[in-house]
């Protein structure tokens, strides 16, 4: 099996002549990982997913999904997909929806009947499986959709906002389900607005802005440059800090800033590791400072996301939507 379940390069799509939804996006999702796709509204995430699922025809595309060309029926048979605003027929029961999805993926009758029951139980819809979708809440439809996406025993599961409309308990259950899917060796491509959701389950993420991929990697890799050391001491900042509260980047190991919080001072150092912090701690002890806390801090996914969607030249957030 290839290292990548999804390996796409130079994906381009322009709607009409003006709306450039995808501008040469390259994305790689490793087999067996949960990969998060992030971006503001109109960034092109859903278009990229739709290109993968043959719903949108790209202007340009290189690469493979499950080692096959995009649209290859063999690959599509092994992909489970839950679109963002899915519309299952409301007159069908949950079981019928899941079985129909299985039949469309060429799953034989006996298997689809067995799997439909199992999966609906797994997503917590066992008691509702023989009732029509018209009587379901949005969260229940979402759970049923998840079962439908998994019924063909997929190697790759593509989920577009799977927790949309689901209550916090349901979200937790879906998160656990995703982890379970990954532990079974499947690959999950998760497109979500919920950063906390992505952060808690995804090994790697990609951030898209205005049809372009601005960063891609593990959360650790993406936030490495922002990793810093924080030392909290009692009293005012030491004199050598000069009371500076600057946030300008400085060379590694140097003081990034210092701030006063109540009776304590917080000293922030960029690019330090535990060994590099020892001389600073020695110096503070030599000055008879009481060290309250020492901790490594890194940028949150939200900080990373906000940095990605902010124009570095103007400091303004990019306007939503594709580039025209």
């Amino acid at each position, binding site marked *: 099996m290839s290292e990548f379940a999804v390996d796409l390069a130079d994906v381009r799509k322009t*709607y009409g002549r003006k709306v450039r939804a995808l501008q040469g996006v390259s994305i790689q999702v490793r087999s067996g990982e949960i990969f998060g796709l992030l971006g503001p509204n109109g960034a092109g995430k859903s278009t990229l997913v*739709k290109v993968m*699922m*043959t*719903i*949108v*025809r790209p202007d340009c595309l290189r690469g493979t999904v499950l080692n096959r060309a995009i649209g290859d*029926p*063999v690959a*599509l*048979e092994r*992909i489970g*997909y839950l*679109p*963002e*605003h*899915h*519309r*299952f*027929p409301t*007159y*069908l029961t949950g079981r*019928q929806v899941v079985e*129909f*999805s299985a*039949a*469309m*993926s*060429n*799953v*034989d*009758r006996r298997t689809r009947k067995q799997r439909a029951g199992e999966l609906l139980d797994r997503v917590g819809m066992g008691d509702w499986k023989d009732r029509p979708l018209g009587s379901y809440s949005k969260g229940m439809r979402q759970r049923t959709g998840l079962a*439908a996406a998994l019924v063909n025993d997929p190697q790759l599961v593509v989920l577009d906002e799977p927790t949309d409309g689901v209550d916090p308990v349901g979200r937790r259950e879906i998160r656990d389900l995703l982890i379970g899917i990954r532990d079974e060796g499947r690959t999950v491509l998760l497109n979500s607005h919920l950063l906390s959701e992505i952060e808690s389950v995804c090994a790697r993420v990609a951030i898209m802005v205005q049809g372009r991929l601005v960063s891609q990697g593990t959360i650790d890799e993406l936030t490495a440059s922002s990793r810093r050391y924080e030392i909290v001491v009692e009293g005012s900042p030491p004199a050598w800090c000069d009371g500076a509260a600057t946030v300008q980047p400085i060379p590694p190991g140097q003081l990034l800033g210092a701030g006063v919080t109540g009776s304590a001072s917080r000293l922030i150092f960029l690019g330090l590791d535990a060994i590099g912090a020892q001389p600073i701690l020695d110096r503070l002890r030599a000055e008879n400072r009481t060290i309250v806390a020492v901790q490594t801090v890194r940028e949150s996914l939200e900080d990373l996301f906000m940095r990605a969607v902010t124009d570095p030249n103007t400091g303004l957030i990019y306007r939503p939507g594709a580039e025209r």
Partner: protein
Amino acid sequence: MTQTLAIFIAAYRELSARRLFWLALGITLLSVGLFSSLGINETGVSFLGWSFESPFFNTNTTSPETFYKLLFINFGVDWWLGLLSTLLALVTTCGIVPDLVAPGSVDLLLAKPISRRRLFLTKYCSGLLFAALQVLLFSTASFIAIGIRGNAWEWTLFAAVPIVTLFYSFLFSICALVGMITRSSVASLILTLVAWSVIFTIGFSETLVNRGRIANEMEQVAIEAALASTKEPPDEDARESLTEALSQANEQEATWQRGHFWLFGIKTILPKTTDTLALLDRWLIDSAAMPARDKESTRGPQEIFGPRHVKRGEFERRVTEEEHSRSIWWVLGTSLLFEGAVLAAATAIFVRRDY
């Protein structure tokens, strides 16, 4: 095969979830019940115990078998299946294509390992399921009714299933194309009805003009024959009148021919809805076995779109011969070509569109 079957089962579930589906099937059974409650005896016809005397319809002129077949064709096929149930079917199925291409719905299907072309055409065929079911029910009920009441177990009644389904498919292809372009059920229903009206109007106009053309031809022959047999004075007035009528007929010949040429050409391109249903008439009713129609030959000439110097029966026979000389391939083949072209356009849009 699994996918095709799944789409058909889903289509059946979709239809059966609609009240209109059951209403249409209920009305179908009711209409068969009504026509099977009509009876024929030596003096006329009966309906739910009441008797109505009729010199045209009684067992001396029409056998019970022919009577029920006539009812099946004239009421069942022409009015019920050819008009009312088709309207109901269009109302019920006009949403199939717009629903297919609706956001959130189409994504679920396009992501499956099935080609867009196959998906669209299978969905289209599933739309014909409703019409086929309705006709099958009507034909089966009529088969039983005619068997019991007319004492004739006429299997050819089931020819209505493919014929009426074909007739419906011509209209449904237009409905599918409009639904594909506009994504609106209402627009596809309205525009299909408009198209049906246009097709009917052109077909009806062609029939009328063809009758006029044949009447003119027969008039010329009849007048020439009358002139040949008319002596010189004392029939001078009659001769003058005939000469004038012949002159008029000769003058009108080119107009009738030209008018019919264009209308026939347009009709050839369009689906022949009325002619398709009339095929059942050809197959189920043998004109020679219809004494009621032979009566026409004893009646006087027809005034409108008919020759004044030819008996109505002769004229009607000639018109029927002319219409029956049009081959099944002309009726169905050209209609299927139209349907194929419309479907090809709808499929091309479905295949090329982004959702």
